[in-house]
């Protein structure tokens, strides 16, 4: 691997303190994948994300949360009662060595903790303090109660996702929040973007800063044409099954293959895709009139009838062969079709194996390895992210981290006796 190309160690040396719940896990995970050292400071009964299922054993257990495992790879866990005055010396010692602190959770919790960090930032002017809250630190909705579902509703993603209305245009199914946890994904990605900007600014100026991420706004950024359409034309896009919300109801895009797998198969407005469909139909032996003078005439005379013909032919082609075969044959013709896979269908796919897309993590307590999504990009030979350690057990690194921060064995024992760690 050419070290110059790869970013997996690009944040080496960066020390991150993560204090909060499931709103912040993902942002810190992304930083850890680029080499940052993330210390997760948890209450003695564990961070909130340890109570999010599913659980490996089927019953709630702070050490068995698959959510916690997924979003806390590479991190260290320290237990410390950050809201107790007597824990402040330990917190200050950790803050003095930190580059970044991530505070996440409900507004009241973050707002209560923030003044301490304003003071600590005065002692450590390079410190970057990033808060992630449901609605941001100010504004009339700042203290509203929210869950992932509520954020997906208020943020606008739900209104554009769901099933087709009936023929009269009436929706008998609700808007759908696409699973799972995407409001926290969006908040986490934007937090990471803002943090990367702040790190770049710190390289210029030597100064840290405060970052106030609103998950509500993060969700709002991600509804594509919904806002521009309304702002410019006053029209509202309508949600439709497995395709783009639009001001009109468009052709269905899912069709069934010979082995009853749904395929996403459609034609974009580019002429070459219509030619490709004709070639594909030829290859699978389905007679058609695409490309003939009669079809060109039909396109001129009756666009709707031509579109229906195209669509029917497309569905006939998809129905003629098993999904996997249609997928490869369509791609060979340059058609961007795909089977509707379950996520796990990708675990055995040679493409992702060749790219090293999954990180293999040893779980000694299970006596096995588990594979995790490991990257979004490659340097041509290796992934840009590196995830190589399972999520920490609760308090697994408390003693180690406190010793590194200058605490002696006796002080650590005293903190433990007083139930502060």
């Amino acid at each position: 691997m050419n070290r110059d190309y790869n970013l997996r160690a690009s944040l080496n040396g960066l020390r991150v303190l993560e204090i909060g719940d499931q709103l912040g896990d993902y942002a810190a995970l992304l930083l850890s994948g680029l080499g940052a050292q993330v210390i997760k400071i948890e209450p003695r009964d564990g961070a909130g994300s340890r109570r999010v299922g599913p659980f490996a054993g089927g019953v709630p257990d702070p050490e068995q949360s698959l959510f916690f495992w997924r979003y806390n790879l590479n991190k260290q866990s320290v237990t410390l009662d950050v809201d107790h005055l007597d824990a402040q010396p330990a917190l200050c010692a950790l803050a003095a060595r930190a580059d970044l602190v991530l505070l996440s959770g409900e507004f009241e919790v973050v707002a209560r903790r923030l003044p301490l960090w304003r003071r600590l930032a005065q002692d450590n002017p390079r410190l970057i303090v990033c808060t992630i809250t449901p609605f941001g630190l100010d504004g009339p909705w700042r203290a509203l109660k929210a869950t992932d579902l509520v954020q997906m509703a208020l943020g606008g993603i739900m209104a554009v996702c769901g099933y087709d209305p009936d023929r009269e245009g009436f929706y008998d199914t609700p808007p759908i929040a696409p699973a799972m946890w995407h409001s926290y994904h969006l908040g986490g990605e934007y937090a990471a973007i803002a943090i990367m900007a702040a790190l770049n600014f710190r390289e210029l100026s030597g100064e840290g800063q405060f970052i106030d991420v609103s998950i509500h706004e993060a969700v709002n950024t991600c509804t594509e044409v919904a806002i521009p359409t309304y702002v410019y034309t006053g029209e509202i896009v309508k949600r439709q099954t497995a395709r783009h919300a639009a001001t009109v109801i468009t052709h269905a895009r899912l069709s069934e293959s010979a082995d009853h797998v749904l395929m996403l198969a459609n034609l974009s407005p580019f002429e070459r895709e219509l030619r490709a469909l004709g070639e594909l139909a030829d290859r699978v032996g389905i007679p058609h009139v695409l490309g003939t003078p009669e079809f060109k005439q039909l396109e001129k005379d009756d666009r709707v009838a031509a579109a229906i013909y195209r669509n029917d032919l497309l569905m006939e082609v998809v129905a003629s062969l098993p999904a996997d075969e249609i997928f490869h044959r369509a791609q060979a013709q340059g058609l961007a079709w795909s089977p509707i896979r379950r996520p796990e269908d990708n675990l055995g796919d040679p493409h992702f194996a060749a790219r090293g897309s999954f990180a293999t993590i040893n779980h000694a307590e299970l006596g096995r390895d588990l594979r995790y999504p490991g990257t979004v990009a490659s340097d041509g030979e290796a992934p840009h992210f590196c995830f190589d350690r399972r999520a920490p057990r609760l308090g697994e690194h408390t003693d180690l981290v406190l010793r590194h921060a200058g605490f002696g064995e006796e002080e650590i024992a005293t903190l433990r006796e007083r139930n502060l760690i």
Partner: protein
Amino acid sequence: MGNGNPKSGRALDGVRVLDLTWLQVGPQATRLLATFGAQVIRIEWRERRAVDFLRYTPPYAPDHARADGGRVQGVTRGRGSPGNYDRGAYFNNTNPGKYGITLNLNHSKGRDLLRRMVRDANAICENFSPGQMDKWELGYEELRKINPGIIYLQTTGLGKAGTYKDYVSYGPTAQAFSGLTFLSGLPEQDHPAGWGYSYLDHSPGYFGAILLMAAIRRQRLTGAGCYLDMSQCETGLMLSGTSLLEHQVTGQPTARYGNRMPFMAWSPHGAYRCSGEDNWIAISVQSDEQWRALTDEMGSPPWALDPRFATAAGRRQHENDLDHDLTGFTAGCDRYDLMNRLQARGIPAGVVQKASDRFDHDPQLKARAYYVDLPQSEIGTWPVEGFPAKLSRSPAEVGGMTGRAAPKLGEDNAFVYGELVGLSAAEMSALAEEGVI
């Protein structure tokens, strides 16, 4: 390459990005770099097949919008006519803060000019079909000979390396392949609901910005370059939640669960119909205490006092009945009034907001000044979607270095070729005549 001026307050001050991207996934990444002060130069060509598809995708600004007459200047809304590359509404929202130039890469002089610009650039981004840049001899290996520190971001559906390196993909393709489409929807329906837009044209753009900024920081510190082969499908896997782990641990196939919450003892949990046309509210009850508060708010109707619903386990076991009965209550309620009443009792609840709600009504977005008014040189000043975080020292500015929304096609040729590249007026007009710029 400048080192940047800390007094500018711009995190990416002095950073120059050559932006060959189009549609959504690439422009999303460079939009975010422009937001933090990078000089993003959008490179396009005038031929129809080389113009960004979004430039001629509706909706368009209304025909009566003018350079000094956009929505903010009081122009009324309406559907505009097609046929002009500089009036696309969605394009305008996707590309604020960028400079725009024209450059013909099918012309050898055009490719030479790009190579010349690469010398002084920090990063170059593209999302052509796999292999296009190599055909032009403008791939990473060629460009790093010119500028060893160059950062090269390429975004494709499946990635440029791997078994399917030649496969093509749009956002929805990647969503279908990675599993995100399957995961979204009601379990009782044969079809998934999927996503109502190209989610995987947005999230890989966010990741593009994260990785570009990680690479720019390292470049500032060490001078090292970087090659980024970004994959929309890998991003989809990254966003597949706990489904892959659950499958490996339990051996069961992944299921979808609509708006319910199978992983916590939260119930009711869903979207419920309210009064009016296609109006809904999301309600997310996290405890028995919240359930009792909801019952109280409803006036304790007999159905809600049914012992089946007294505990979370019971409510989840009888969730279809529960949702049916609860809808009987919500269907008569005004959605915002109900949201306020439930929130006042500490119950997580929120209106399923449509674009009109988010733009006209949402008091939180207003208070945080989320929408940003930016001028465009042909259609006037319109609101553009903002950045979802406030930074105290190097703030996000969606208008970037240009202070504008999207550039017109080739709007900044004189500035970029004249002042940044250093071509004389005579050279520029000769290149224009030859069909190079």
